[in-house]
């Protein structure tokens, strides 16, 4: 029940952090990471996971 970010593909634009309704995304040593404990896959907030919907690189914010 969570999303993760494939670091090797991430451009570190930060759009996902901006859109996440759970504040589950933050930077660790320059890389964006999703805190699985906080991620709800946006259920109850929005019809689709916001990080995956806004991410400019395909298959970079993916379901664990």
């Amino acid at each position, binding site marked *: 029940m969570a999303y993760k970010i494939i670091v090797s593909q991430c*451009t570190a634009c930060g759009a996902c952090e901006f859109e996440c309704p759970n504040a589950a995304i933050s930077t660790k040593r320059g890389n964006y990471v999703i805190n699985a404990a906080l991620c709800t896959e946006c259920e109850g907030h929005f019809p689709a996971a916001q990080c995956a919907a806004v991410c400019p690189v395909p298959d970079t914010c993916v379901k664990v």
Partner: protein
Amino acid sequence: MAQIITLESLLAPAAPPTSSAASGCTASACGSSQAPSGMDPAVWERVKDHPCYAEEAHHYFARMHVAVAPACNIQCNYCNRKYDCANESRPGVVSEKLTPDQAVRKVVAVANAVPQLSVLGVAGPGDAVYDWRHTRETFERVQAAIPDLRLCLSTNGLALPDHVEAIAAMGVDHVTITINFIDPEIGARIHPWIFFNHQRHTGVEAARILHERQMLGLEMLVARGILAKVNSVMIPGINDEHLAEVNRVVTQKGAFLHNIMPLISDPAHGTAFGLFGQRGPTPAELKALQDRLAGGANLMRHCRQCRADAVGLLGEDRGQEFNLDQLPAEAAYDPAARATYRDLVAETRGEHAAHRDAARDDVAAMDAPAVLVAVATRGGGRINEHFGHAKEFQVYEVSPEGIRFTAHRRVEQYCQGGWGEDATLEGVLATLAGIACVLVAKIGDCPRQSLEDAGIAASQDHAYDWIESGIAAWYAQRYRSTVRLTA
């Protein structure tokens, strides 16, 4: 590294003034505006030191971009967010993303080192308005440090209506919207998706939403008196014909300036268009479209499609000199150099305007064809660069109608310090195709001969003269026999 024009070089001796410029009143002496003909003096006050908004200003003033807003809310087929290369010069490309704190340090360092600096822009990668938190913080802090620096931003327009009030309240006077289409069917071929209202939209529906938001944003800017520039990427076979419609609509909605830029497309860039083999327009195709649209919103023809972290006069990029690791940890802004430079420009500009008017009168008396003249300049509005040192030539069209800047053409620097590379010269010759004459501060015998063999005249007779005066003098000499005999 490109050499920026110094205060001293602006004071370089000018050639003796030509004909009527020597007598009569100058624009500044009469107390009237130095604005180019047809421009409202009040608008001129707002654009005269913005190199992108006023062609005349780009001879004197420099801009810098800071990449503080990397998040974007749309995808464009000419953009690939994964790539970044220090050797590439094109919009959206940047070497290092900055936090607002780092950006302020960089702006202060540049303002202390580059007295020509007049504008700070946030122009990607990403969208300055969607990523508004970062843009706002940067602007607020820069404004506190350097109050007279103009703030400028560019956006795809999707988030613009949400932030126009904040933009206006902050005193941002120049906003650029990239508008590539009016018809959503065409838009869908350029922008595959958008992220809006917490959803990803695709296809024609996405393009329709984007279009509506762009139009609303443009109207809101114009209603608040903010100068709106519209950038359009010209994509042959997709929107090239359609840009006439874009021009018509944005003109009618009150856009101040329309900048049609050629698509930059290469498979190595990894963009959808690049991989698909979509070509960009040729310089001739671009100019033909621009000429066809003359009469609508003012067309910007001096765009260099600079990198999103460019620093310096248009056409040069000193960005690499101001990378983070080269910046002092703490630096105080010293306004002295910029103030001195501004005073100097105010003075020389009146003189330049008078000479420009005189040159216009001189060519108006001719009965000669329209020809293209290439000029080597380091800025300051003068013919003051050596042929071999030029990294670009500014192309002017001269005819009895007047002397008009039409484009710049980039070349590889020919001179390698005492010697020149023949292969490079070949490239320069190809780039100068269609040019009647090249006006330079100095040129060697060998390249001059090669130019002449290619049917291009080269002259250093007008070295250090004002660009327009030099062009008019060369034109009068070249077509001497065709001066109209008027009473």
